[in-house]
């Protein structure tokens, strides 16, 4: 029973289990350096898509020139 439950519990706390395959050491002080670009690279495409769609929306609503 313990052998089955314990891994599941550890899965809920990956930093305690050192279970993150890409982050390696959870106490690594450079983890913030990974976090910043991850957030940046995740939000940048969305922001640019929002920019293009906003431009198209604005272009559709502007009065037609003759």
């Amino acid at each position, binding site marked *: 029973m313990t052998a089955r439950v314990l891994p599941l519990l550890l899965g809920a706390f990956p930093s305690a289990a050192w279970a993150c395959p890409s982050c390696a050491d959870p106490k690594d002080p*450079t983890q913030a*350096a990974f976090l910043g*670009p991850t957030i*940046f*690279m995740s939000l*940048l*495409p969305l922001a640019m898509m929002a920019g*293009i769609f906003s431009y*198209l929306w604005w272009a559709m609503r502007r009065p037609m020139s003759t």
Partner: protein
Amino acid sequence: MSVAEIAVLPVPRPRRTKPVVESAVLGMLIFVYTEVMFFAAMLSGYHIDQARSITGVWPPPGEPALPAAATAVTTVALIASGVAVFLAGRRFRESSAAALLPLRIAAVLASLFVGWQVYEAVKLVGEGLTLQTSAHSGFFYMIVGSHAVHCVVAIGILAWTLARIGRGALSAPAFQAVRIFWYFVVGLWPFLYGVVYL
């Protein structure tokens, strides 16, 4: 149908006879989108490598110093070329020939910028800073070199634009697409300069 009924009929919206956005402009916007992601990926890698520097010193000690002050001057030249292209866009509305002078000035300014980049790279390689020296130097040449390649392409497109204007064959959407690419190349550089040189 009575006159009163006709009066309350909805007035149909006039049909759009022109595309919302010209294909050249939309295509260039999507292309610039992919280019932004390309440079963002390199900057992210640079940032992570900087944080993982073993010595905690960045750039690594012993490497030749990057010429930040001189490059700042050429940065001003590149930004001025962006202003010149902006003015060319405004003049183009009056007549395409009126845009020739600011476009030529922009081409000269951008050529000065690229010329300095090449001179700087040759000098740094002579001082021992090569792609293999460190992760810092590798990223430096990758980021700055990629931007310089974009500048060369932008100058080539500007030469094409000048030739088309000379023949009176440049359409307004094509010129707008050229300007978008130029603004991208100019607008990107201050970010790269801030990250890599400062």
